[in-house]
Structure formats: C-alpha cells, structure tokens
C-alpha cells in the first residue's frame, strides 16, 4: 500500500536528497538569527515545509508515523511554554517580564545576546509544528471534500 501512495519515484528521490539540506538550512537560519538575517519565524516555517514536502511526496500515512498530529501539537505547546518561562524567569530575576537575564557575550558569536537564541528556538518549535499540524488537519478535510462527489456519482 505504501508504494502506491504519494507521488512518482522521481519526486520521492529528490525529496530524500533535499530534506536533510532543508532541515540544516532551517536550523542555520534559527541559530544565527541574532547575527545574520533570519530568525525563529522563517526557520520554523522552513522546518514545517520539510514535513509538508514529505507529506506531499510520500503520503500522509508515512509522515504521521514519524511525527503525528498529537506530537506536533505537544511540541507546539512546549515551544509556547519555553517562551513563557523565559519571560517569567526574567520577571523574577530582572524585575520585568521577558527581561534579558543572560549575559550579552561577544558580538558575532553564536552564544551572544542573552535570551534571544532561546526565544528563537521556542518560536521555531511553535511556528514549525503549528503550521505542520494545520497542514495535516487541512489534508484530512481536503480528502473528505474531494472524495464526497465521487460517492454521489457512483
């Protein structure tokens, strides 16, 4: 059954090659978000696009075996909780919500600018898994909508 779902072998092969590169580039954009252009939102959407590409090429069954919709929403919640707890720690340490309580470090280094990198990673988890979960939910809906007229014809 798995062989017949999804697209042609050409698309599957290209997906296999591209997925790792896209994930690495998304992680790069997130990790260097405070040094070069980029940040949590574009990186998160890029990581969501990797999963969406696998969904389109291999079918929904295979990608849900890797990351199911429930896992996606749990990771989404973890991202929100990380952001919230950074804010609360800032409130208790520095006196204001979302205070930058870590050291500034040297500019142009990856471990600089305090809590920005933590917040970037939190937003990545949040945005990436959120958009992927929305795509999964929409693909369920679209399946029903497209199959329904066929039933009427038969």
């Amino acid at each position, binding site marked *: 059954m798995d062989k017949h779902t999804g697209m042609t072998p050409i698309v599957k092969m290209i997906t296999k090659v591209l997925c790792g590169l896209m994930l690495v580039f998304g992680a790069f*954009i997130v990790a260097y*978000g*405070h*040094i*070069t*252009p*980029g*940040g*949590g*939102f*574009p990186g998160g*959407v*890029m990581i*969501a*696009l990797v999963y*969406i590409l696998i969904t*389109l090429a291999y079918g929904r069954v295979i990608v849900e075996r890797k990351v199911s919709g429930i896992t996606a*929403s749990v990771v*989404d919640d973890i*991202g*929100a909780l990380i*952001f*919230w707890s950074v*804010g609360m720690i800032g409130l208790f340490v520095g006196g204001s*919500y*979302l205070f*930058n309580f870590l050291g*500034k470090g*040297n*500019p*142009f280094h990856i471990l*600089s*600018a*305090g*809590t*920005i990198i933590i*917040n*970037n990673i939190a*937003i990545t988890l*949040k*945005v990436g898994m*959120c*958009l992927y*979960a*929305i*795509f999964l*939910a*929409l*693909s*369920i*809906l*679209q*399946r*029903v*909508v*497209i*199959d*329904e007229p*066929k*039933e009427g014809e038969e």
Partner: protein
Amino acid sequence: METIIILHIILVFMIIGSLITVEIRNMLSAVISVGAVGFALSLAFLFLDAPDIAITQVIVEILSLVILIRATIKVDNVAIEKREHILSDRTALIFVGMILVFAWFAFQSLPTFGEPSMRVSEYYLMNGLREVGATNFVTSVILDYRAYDTLGEAMVLFTSISGAFVILRRWKKEQDKDFLRIDREH
C-alpha cells in the same frame, strides 16, 4: 535613484499580476499569479534592504502556495460569469472613490521616501548593540525590546491552531464512517 526605478517596475508587475488573478477563469492559474505577486513583493523587500522580511515573505509565500495549489488542483471551480447586480458595482465604485480621496489627504502628511519618520528607530540603531549584544537589529527589536508583541503573535498562532483543530476534528467525526468506507473502496 535606481532603486526607485526598480521598485516601480516591480510594482507595475505586481499590479498586472493582481489583475490577472482577479480576472482569469482558471483557478490554478489564479493561484499561480498570486504566487508571482508574492515573489515580486519579496524582491521589492530585498531591494529596500530588508532581508529579514524578504526571507519571511518568500518562505510564507511558498507555504501558502503549496496549501492553495493542493486545495485547488483537483477541484474544478467554475467562475461566476453572470453579473446581475449593477448596484454592487456602483457601491464598490463609490467606496473606492472615498478611499482614494481620504488616502490623498493622508498621504500628504507622509514623510518623503527613505526618510525615517520615527525617531525611536534611531535609538535602536545607536544603542542596540551595546544594550542587547545582537548584531541583527531586527531580531533585537522583536525578541528583546518588543518581545511582548512577539509573545502576542505566538498566541495568535496558538489560537488559530486550536480553532482549526476544534473545527476540523468535529467535522471529521461526523463523517468518520463514510470516510473509512471510501478509503476501503479505493
């Protein structure tokens, strides 16, 4: 000066793409021309020296194109050809005219192109590196100076995913048996 010319070319291209999107009959072609408009917009951001927004625009454009093409590629949507209500055209014309009149007065007070209107951005440029330590000032604004706004943005996403899941899940449960039976037939 050259940036202005390039921007005008991109803007004309975007207007033509939008007109094609509205007027074309085929749904898939309309979606593709929406994508062309979006990529031209990201090019405009790139020429305006805003690479952060350009990256975000390209990536979100790709995502929305994938979803839109996936939604329209198998469904034949027939465009409505009959236009019975002439009154709606007149109402639209009146409102567009009003918007243009008020926009004319509003645009008089805008600063000239390339001149910063808000002095607060100068503060970020002067003190951002010293106070935050991030060399990308956009990130230092959205995640340090204005992190509370970003939290609200994340909450918007959270609400949207919750709403989508609630609506789609209930819809699926009602049709669950039909859904499974159709799967088995194929």
